[in-house]
């Protein structure tokens, strides 16, 4: 039971419904048209390019090529974190890269070897899409966590300094915001882990079922990926803050971001 192939032109049928959206937006002066059309256009181009690329990668299915692609994903995610969080690319790109690259790499290889039991743990079919899911989640968690930590610290600078004046060390003085950051990072994923499957079937499961897997197989994969996402997100944010904070303070323990 394979998936029904879609011809290249039929996705454009959906545009039939976009037309009334555009008309309604014009009539009601809801300024969304530009963004909707741009987003749809960009999404299509982006995915087609990735699709071509992945076709070749799957064709080679070579340890080094696959790993290079995974490193590219980690790099893109790292760059996006640094930019979104307003960190300096020069000083903080590498710490971020290591900070969430390592936990996710360890997690994906662990799953492939011990949980799924693959002979080739670098097999593109598993390595790349699963890593993509882990990284995507780690990325959003990292952005929330890092932002919470540094903006919280900045906003409460006087309280932080008062702690230092009381002779708490840098770690003790920043602990309230560190904890806040971990909680802020984990909250969304905990909520979605709790309710998953009740409201909608998760994307990966949907994909697998469409691809012909039995629901129970898809469920087991989903359980694994949810657990893995939760774990790597947790360690990712710890590592990222711990590694970035080395260069975020000066000799006087002042925040210099």
């Amino acid at each position, binding site marked *: 039971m394979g998936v029904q192939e879609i011809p290249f032109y039929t996705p454009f049928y959906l545009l039939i419904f976009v037309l009334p959206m555009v008309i309604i937006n014009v009539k009601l002066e809801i300024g969304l048209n530009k963004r909707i059309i741009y987003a749809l256009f960009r999404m299509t181009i982006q995915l087609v390019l990735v699709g071509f690329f992945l076709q070749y990668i799957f064709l080679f299915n070579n340890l080094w090529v696959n790993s290079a692609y995974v490193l590219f994903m980690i790099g893109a995610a790292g760059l996006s974190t640094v930019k979104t969080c307003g960190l300096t690319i020069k000083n903080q790109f590498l710490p971020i890269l290591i900070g969430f690259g390592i936990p996710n790499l360890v997690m994906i290889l662990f799953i492939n070897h011990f949980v799924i039991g693959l002979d080739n743990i670098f097999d593109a079919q598993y390595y790349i899409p699963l890593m993509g899911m882990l990284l995507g989640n780690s990325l959003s968690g990292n952005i929330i966590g890092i932002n919470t930590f540094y903006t919280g610290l900045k906003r*409460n600078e*006087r309280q932080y300094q*008062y702690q*230092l004046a009381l*002779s708490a060390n840098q770690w003790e003085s920043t602990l309230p915001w560190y904890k806040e950051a971990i909680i802020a990072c984990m909250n969304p994923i905990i909520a979605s882990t709790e309710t998953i499957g009740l409201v909608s079937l998760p994307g990966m499961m949907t994909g697998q079922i469409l691809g012909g897997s039995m629901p129970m197989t898809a469920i087991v994969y989903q359980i694994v990926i949810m657990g893995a996402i939760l774990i790597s997100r947790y360690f990712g944010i710890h590592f990222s803050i711990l590694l970035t904070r080395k260069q975020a303070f000066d*000799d006087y323990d002042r925040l210099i971001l």
Partner: protein
Amino acid sequence: MAYLEFRDIQLKFDERMIFSDFNLEIEQLEKVLFCAPSGRGKTSLVKMLLGFVVPDAGEILVDGIRLSGATVNSIRSKISYVSQDADIPKGIVRDVFAAVFKYPVNRHVNYQEAVLSNWLETMALPEDTLERNIDALSGGERQRLALILGILLDRDIWVLDEITTGLDLELKTKMVELLLDYDKTILVVSHDDIYQNRGLREVSW
């Protein structure tokens, strides 16, 4: 050599020169009132002493030790800093106090909750303050708690930055008299007349 020394201090804030070639010496146990007009950097001056503001040039010496990244922690540990904002850590008063005295640097201080209770009374704070959350206290109450904390830490230098704001005259007078009675090196930042004629050395610039 004086106990506290500011030598040739230069400090700019947003391109505005706050201090240039500023020099000041303070002897041990001396009580000093910084009463320069607003915007002259009184708070910046005491923050420089604590290493929260670092001068662009010049040096600061505390008891013969030059303030730097390497010495900042030991210098901070000699100073009780109480500011008008009184940003006491969040939590239940009792726990917050206990936590502060668990920091390695403060462990030598013999802290007991009973002592804190006595101080609450002295500072006209209700008895149940111990069980209350810092967030639930008024600004004036927090300020007095910060003062108690400052006193209990028993450090050699006291930096009191606008600590009388928002207190009524009676309480203010009582507090100032009590504080100035201690044999400590005391640096006061204030505009309040309450410090006049109490034998403080007035420093302005």
